[in-house]
Structure formats: structure tokens, C-alpha cells
């Protein structure tokens, strides 16, 4: 409060303008930042959505291309093995021999089977065949047959291999999962009425067939049969099990397609004997990369927002500083009485009202209203220029009287008001007010408007106190004015203190 009651009459205005400018700067900064952040969010959202679309399209295309490549690899691999098997038809002895003729010479049979065996071994020499043999209808075998196959088929070897032939056109067929054993994949081809060629390879060989480039490790490659049994999977544990329902339902009836939804990205192509090559990945994993991209977009957006915020602060400072001085000067001029250098009526009223409003218990003030005695005569006889000088001198006298602890304003043509803080230690406030009024009257008592000392410049004073006489500016001012009226009617050049008895009636 004491600061605000300082004698520098511009301080209040400066402080008030400073507060207003700070508020304005803050509002500008926040507003600009909000707009920038909103713009960045909108742009980021658009980028998010675009990234999502592009990524889904790209990954779907890539998965579809991979799937086609896997299907072609598989077809090519199976065709190569079939072609090797077909070579048994190059030697008549191989495809026409029947080991079931009991009347045949045993020695001849042994030699013939030796020859056939040699031929079969020479045919399969460069491939990783597990079996490459001819099985005759009496379950006798010639050529390369593994113990695993022997044990698996036992005495049903001819019958069950014959049952695997399911293509009428070529009299052959592929089979996997015999007796739930998915370790080998068999190819069977009939070579005569009593014999079938049996070849097989380990399912693990398909790892080379389905080997795909790095970067798409998250994609699971599977080969399934027509009953959705998993013949091969890049996840070993799945081999031999049923294709999981979520995927099976999505590709049901599909021959060649790519599907992407919220849960899965799946490409499927049929190959061989109603087998399907399926490449799939959970969409969540596929979009993980998108989330990574989004993370970086968010980081960029935050960084940009931060930069926008800082830039805004810098710019607002650069703009506000030159404006601030001009605004302060204009505001000061608008709030002061230029003739006397005191607050004008509006500013004075604002300051005093605010002081009263912000006062706390124990704060006490007194308001003095001064009216120049016979000022009209000075104006009329000595001219308005002299009158203005008198008013300016009044301002000087008042400033000298109250270097600190007072607000002083010109509240009318020849009317001034002073708001004084009453020290808290004083118990008799009326004595303080009387003393101030008397001193003020004395200050004007030897003042003259002219050098001949014809026109004396004295003042009449009315005083009222806060909070004892009034609790608002208007009441305080009105009560002080009533006391002034009493002084005027008492012969002027005197002062009156407001009390309940002072009516102020003219």
C-alpha cells in the first residue's frame, strides 16, 4: 500500500499498464501456442491416417507378392521331384518289372532288382530324398526306403501308398500326415499294375523352399492340406496341428487372395493337391512399424510446439517492447491532468476506489477536498492564463506538501482532492486530519495570483475519513464535499471535518 501511495504519481499508472501488457502478452503467447498446437495436431492426425493407409497397402502388396513367390517356389519344388520320379519310365526294366511273379527265377530276380535298385539310386542321387523306391503289391520294395517309412506303413505299405494316388490324369498324388506323422511328404506314382513308385522328403526341406528375405520375419508361412492340417509352418510347433480357426475362417473358399482387417493380414494361394500356401501376420505386429513412425511424428510435433512456443515468446517480446513505451506514455497522459501534473478526476477516482476496495482491517484514510477561493475573480480580472498559472502552482504546492503517502487529483476546474493514509499508531484520527487541513490552509495562506498581492489564492477544505465516515469512494467524496460546503459558508480559507451533524445543505 505504501508503495502505491508513493509520491511518484506515474507509478500507479505504470504498474497498471505493466500488468495489462503482461496479461496481453500472456494471452497472445497462449493463444498463438494453442493455435500452433492445434495446427500441428491436425497435421499430425492427417499424417497418421495417411501413414496408416500407405503402410497397410504396402504391407498387403508385399505379403501378396511374398505369398505368390512362396507358391511358385513350392510348385517348382514339387514339379522337380515329380520330374525326377517320372524318369523311372526311361528304363523299361524299371517300370515293367513285377516282383510278384512267384514263378520267376530267383537268381534273375535278384539281378534284375539289383539293376533296378542301381537305377533308382542313380536317379535320386542329387536330391535329399528320404525314400526313392518301388513298392510292389506283395509289399516287397526295391530301391531306397527308409526305416521310418518301413515302420510307419508296415504290412499296409503297398495298399496305403496306392491309396495316395488321387490324380487320374497322371496316376500320382502327394500326401502328408500319414498316421499323423508329418515328418515326411510322400509322392506316389503308379508305374504298373503291381507297383508304385514312392518318393519322399523331410518336411524340414521346405525351410529352403519357403526361405524368404529378412525384414519380414513377423510373417508366418504355412503349407496346409485340404483339411487345413498344417503340413509345414515357419513355427515348428504348428506342424501337424489344425490351422488356427481365426485364419481358417478368413481364407475359407479362397484360392488366391489377400485379406487385411483389424486382426490379421493374410495372403493365400493354392498349389499342388488342394494345398494352400498361407502367409499371415497379426495386424498389430504389422502396424507396429506404423506406431514407431507415429511415435516419431509425436516427438516432432512436440518439438515443433516447443519451438513455436519459444518463437512466440521471442516475437511477442520484440513486438511489445517498442509498443510498451508508447502505450505507457499515452496511458500516462490520459490519466494525468496536464496542467497541474496531478491525476485527473477519473484516474484519481479509480485509484482511491481500488485503495478502499483492497484495504484491510485497520487501514484508515482521510480524503480532503480543496476548492480555490475566489478563483473566478482571478480568471475574470487577470485572465485565464494567470488562472492556469495559479492552478499549476496549486499542483506544485500540493506535491510539495505530500511527497509520499498520498494520492492527489484535480477533480474539478478549481477543485482538488487529496487521499492520505492515516498512520496506524495514531489513536486520535480527528487530530491528524485537523493538523493536515490546517497545514494545507497555511500553505496557501500567503499565496497571491499577482505580484501586487491584490488577489489572494486561498483554499477552503472539507475532510472525511475512511472507514469511520464512509466505506466507499462515492460516500467518502460526498461527505468530504459536504464538509467543504461548510467551510465555504464559514468565510472561506478554512477547513471543516465531516461529522454526522454536517448536513451540507445549501
Amino acid at each position, binding site marked *: 500500500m505504501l508503495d502505491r501511495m508513493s509520491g511518484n504519481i506515474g507509478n500507479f499508472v505504470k504498474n497498471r499498464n505493466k500488468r495489462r501488457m503482461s496479461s496481453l502478452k500472456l494471452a497472445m503467447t497462449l493463444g498463438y501456442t494453442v493455435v500452433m498446437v492445434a495446427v500441428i495436431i491436425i497435421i499430425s492426425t492427417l499424417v497418421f491416417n495417411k501413414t496408416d493407409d500407405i503402410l497397410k497397402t504396402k504391407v498387403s502388396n508385399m505379403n501378396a507378392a511374398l505369398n505368390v513367390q512362396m507358391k511358385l517356389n513350392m510348385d517348382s519344388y514339387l514339379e522337380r521331384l515329380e520330374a525326377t520320379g517320372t524318369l523311372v519310365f526311361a528304363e523299361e526294366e524299371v517300370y515293367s518289372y513285377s516282383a510278384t511273379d512267384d514263378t520267376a*527265377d*530267383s*537268381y534273375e530276380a*535278384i*539281378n534284375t*532288382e*539289383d539293376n533296378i535298385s542301381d537305377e533308382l*539310386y*542313380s536317379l*535320386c*542321387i*542329387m536330391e*535329399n*530324398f*528320404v525314400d526313392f523306391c518301388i513298392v510292389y503289391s506283395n509289399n516287397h520294395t526295391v530301391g*531306397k526306403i*527308409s*526305416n*521310418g517309412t*518301413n*515302420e510307419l506303413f*508296415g504290412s499296409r505299405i503297398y495298399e496305403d501308398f496306392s491309396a495316395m494316388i488321387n490324380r487320374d490324369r497322371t496316376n500320382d498324388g502327394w500326401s502328408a500326415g500319414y498316421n499323423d506323422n508329418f*515328418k515326411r511328404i510322400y509322392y506316389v506314382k503308379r508305374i504298373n499294375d503291381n507297383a508304385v513308385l514312392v518318393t519322399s522328403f*523331410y518336411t*524340414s526341406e521346405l525351410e*529352403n523352399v519357403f526361405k524368404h528375405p*529378412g525384414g519380414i520375419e513377423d510373417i508366418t508361412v504355412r503349407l496346409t492340406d485340404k483339411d487345413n492340417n498344417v503340413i509345414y509352418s515357419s513355427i515348428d510347433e504348428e506342424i501337424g496341428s489344425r490351422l488356427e480357426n481365426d485364419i481358417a475362417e478368413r481364407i475359407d473358399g479362397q484360392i488366391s487372395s489377400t485379406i487385411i482387417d483389424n486382426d490379421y493380414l493374410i495372403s493365400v494361394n493354392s498349389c499342388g493337391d488342394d494345398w494352400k500356401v498361407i502367409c499371415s501376420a497379426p495386424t498389430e505386429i504389422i502396424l507396429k512399424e506404423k506406431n514407431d513412425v507415429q511415435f*516419431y511424428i509425436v*516427438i*516432432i510435433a512436440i*518439438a*515443433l510446439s*516447443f*519451438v513455436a512456443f*519459444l*518463437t512466440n515468446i*521471442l516475437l511477442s517480446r*520484440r513486438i511489445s517492447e517498442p509498443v510498451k513505451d508508447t502505450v505507457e506514455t499515452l496511458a500516462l497522459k490520459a490519466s494525468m491532468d496536464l496542467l497541474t501534473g496531478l491525476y485527473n478526476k477519473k484516474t484519481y477516482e479509480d485509484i482511491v476506489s481500488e485503495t478502499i476496495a483492497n484495504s484491510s482491517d485497520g487501514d484508515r484514510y482521510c480524503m480532503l477536498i480543496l476548492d480555490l477561493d475566489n478563483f473566478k475573480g482571478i480568471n475574470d480580472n487577470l485572465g485565464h492564463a494567470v488562472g492556469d498559472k495559479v492552478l499549476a502552482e496549486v499542483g506544485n504546492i500540493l506535491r510539495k506538501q505530500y511527497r509520499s503517502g498520498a494520492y492527489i487529483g484535480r477533480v474539478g476546474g478549481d477543485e482538488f482532492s487529496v487521499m492520505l493514509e492515516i498512520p496506524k499508531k495514531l489513536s486520535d484520527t480527528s487530530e491528524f486530519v485537523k493538523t493536515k487541513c490546517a497545514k494545507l490552509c497555511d500553505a496557501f495562506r500567503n499565496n497571491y495570483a499577482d505580484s501586487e498581492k491584490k488577489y489572494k489564492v486561498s483554499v477552503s477544505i472539507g475532510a472525511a475519513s475512511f472507514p469511520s465516515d464512509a466505506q466507499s469512494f462515492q460516500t467518502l467524496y460526498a461527505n468530504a464535499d459536504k464538509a467543504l460546503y461548510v467551510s465555504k459558508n464559514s468565510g472561506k480559507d478554512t477547513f471543516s471535518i465531516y461529522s454526522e451533524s454536517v448536513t451540507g445543505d445549501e
Partner: protein
Amino acid sequence: MMKRKLLVMLILMVFAATGCSADNAPVETVDEQIELTLSWWGNDARHEYTLEAVKQFEKLYPNIDVKCSYTEWSGYQTRSDVLMRSDTEADVMLINYAWIEKYSSDGSGYYDLYKVADSIGLENFDEYELSFGVKNEKLNAIPIAMNTQSFYVNKTIYDSYGLSVPKTWDDMFEAAKVMNGEVYPIAMTAKSAFFYVVAYAEQESGKRFMEQDSTVNFSVDDFRTMIDFYCRLINEKVMPQVEYFDRKEIGEGKYAGCLAWLSDGSAYFNKAIENGYEYVVADYPTMNGVSSGTGWYAKPATMYAVSKNTVHPQQAAMLLDFLLNSDEMAELQATEKGIPLSTAAREYLSETGKLEGMQYKAFEKMQENGELAVLSPYFENDDMIDEFRSCCNAVLFDKETAESQAQYLYDLYTKK
């Protein structure tokens, strides 16, 4: 000026935060992917565990991709011949002991593993063991285990006929009489039959069939002894013709005994043991009071070699070391190829209680028999063994005489 500096700094901060840079350097560097090839022969079990071992090796060394080529023994040698001749052999190969002499008589046919000794745990092998793979001071191959033909007897069947485990050749013929064609006292493949009749002929003649340098000591008469003995075994139903030997029938109790490699113990007889038959590894049949090991041979079961043409010798050596000495491979392979010579692998098997089963019993019997003669690298010539079988069949079916076939074989073996 200060404000401008601040602005520049801020922009740089944003670029730094967003990872933007004026440098167009690659974002990621990838190690060179190396492809190795590995070839082996064997049965289903060996294929399966070797493929699994390769997977584990690839996990251990993600920048090495191992391409596998495998088949059964029949056909592997022919494939190897083709590949070796065409310089397209695998980087790492399972080879037969005899092939060192065949492909690398001066030591230059395979990569000298001493050059990559720092990548192979050679300390797991003693000098004697490594000497099987040394040719002209170059380490061409490392043996996996020692192997020998072993005599496995289905004691349950012998007992059921009131017979004790045969000790002499005559016991075999006596057993055949008692079994009366219901079961065979013994059965075997063509190669095992060759070892069987050579052992008989060596015991009878007191001569060694072949020296290490391929010199054949047998005379025409000794070859005649071999042919006659084979035909007698067939005619008196001691064993079925080798063409009709069917491993499935071991489990079904059709054979009361088998001659097979030590390393085949589990593969051949586990099914029969599961079916309740008791198997023992018996002494070799003898005559005239000779010791059990007379006429019988030991050799490195199989060996790993590296191609002389490999462009990745270091990585090939790493794979070879993994296959020979790693816990992972010891766990998967166990005693399938016999009892490993690698001390690291053997210690692992010992600690994990895996030194057991038919192979281990056969290994103990091999040690009981003392130091068996080392097999000549030229002994196991499949073509020659095939010729012997053909000659025997010709005699067996009265197409040729034993004299003419013995002469034929003698000429064949002694031809320079």
C-alpha cells in the same frame, strides 16, 4: 545477435530430437551372410538330429546359413564321387575313413585342418585318434568315434531254443539245425557278410586279408573259402541271403542274431528290446581256440572333413567344431555314431548319464577284445563287395562254379 543464436540453437535441437541429419549414411549395417554346405549320410534318426543341430548352430551364428545335403549310405558314396570330381562338394562333409586314401592320397584332397586349428577344439583328441585323419602331415579329417562290426545276439530266442550264446562257427551251424528254419541264428547286410566271411577265412588261413597299402594276402583258395562259407551259411539256413535281410524283421524276432556296426546298435535293436527281447553283445565266433578279436577290424566310424575348395574355412571349422565338441551336438547325437572320441562330448554324455545302451555295450565289447587290427582304407570298397555278393549268388544258384568265381575275385582284387 543473441536471439539469433538462440533460434539457431533451437532449430538444431529440433533436428537432433527428430533424428534428422544432413548425413546420408546408411541407417543399419548388416553382417555379411555366409552360406555353408554340409553333407552327411545316415538313417532317419541321424538326419533328424543333424538338421536340428544345424538349426541350433544357425541360431548361435545368425550370419551363417547352412545348407544341408543328406541321404542314406547307399547312394552317398556315388553322390560324393560326383561332387568331389566336379568340385561341388560340401564345405563340411561326413566322410568314410577309406576316402582319405581315395581322394587325398597326398594330403591335398581335403582342407588341412591344422590351418584352422584355433577354431577347432583339437585338444579333445589325442594324437593316435587324429592320426587316422592325417595324410602327409596334413590333418584331412577328424574321427567322430571308433567302429567295428559287432555280434548282437537275441538271447531271448537262443534261450527259447535251449541254446547258449554261440562261441564258435560250429555253434552257429548247430543253432541253425535246432532252429530248423523257423528263425535264422544270424542275419546281416551284404557288407557285414563280407566282414563275416573274411573273419572266418582269416581264422582258417591264419593270413590277414589285406594290408594297409591295399596289398591282398589271400590266395585264390582263400577266396574260395569265403565263397564256400557264404554259400554254406545260406544253404544251412544260418542266415538269410543278404538281399532278403530286412531290418523290420529284427523287431519281430525273425533273426536270433545280427552282425552290424557298433554305431547301429540302437537303430537296429531298440525296437526288438521294446518288444521284450533281451540283447547281448557276444564274442565273435572263433575256431581252433583263436582269440575273439582275430580276423576282425576297427576303424574310425565316420569322420568330418572340410572341402579343399571352401571359401569360408574359418566358418567351416566353426561348424565342424560344433558338430564334434559342442554340448548341443553331444546331447542330440549321444552315441548314435558310437562312443564319441571327443573328450568334451564324452564328458557331457557321461555327466548326463547318456553313456549307455547297445552302442555302449558294443563299445565295451570292442575294448574287451583288445586292440583290433585297423581296417585298411581299401577294405570297404562297395563295388568290390558287390562283386563278391554277385559271385556268391552265381555259385549259390549254380550259375558258376566256386573255383571260377574265386579266381575272378582274386584277379579283381590283385589287379593293379
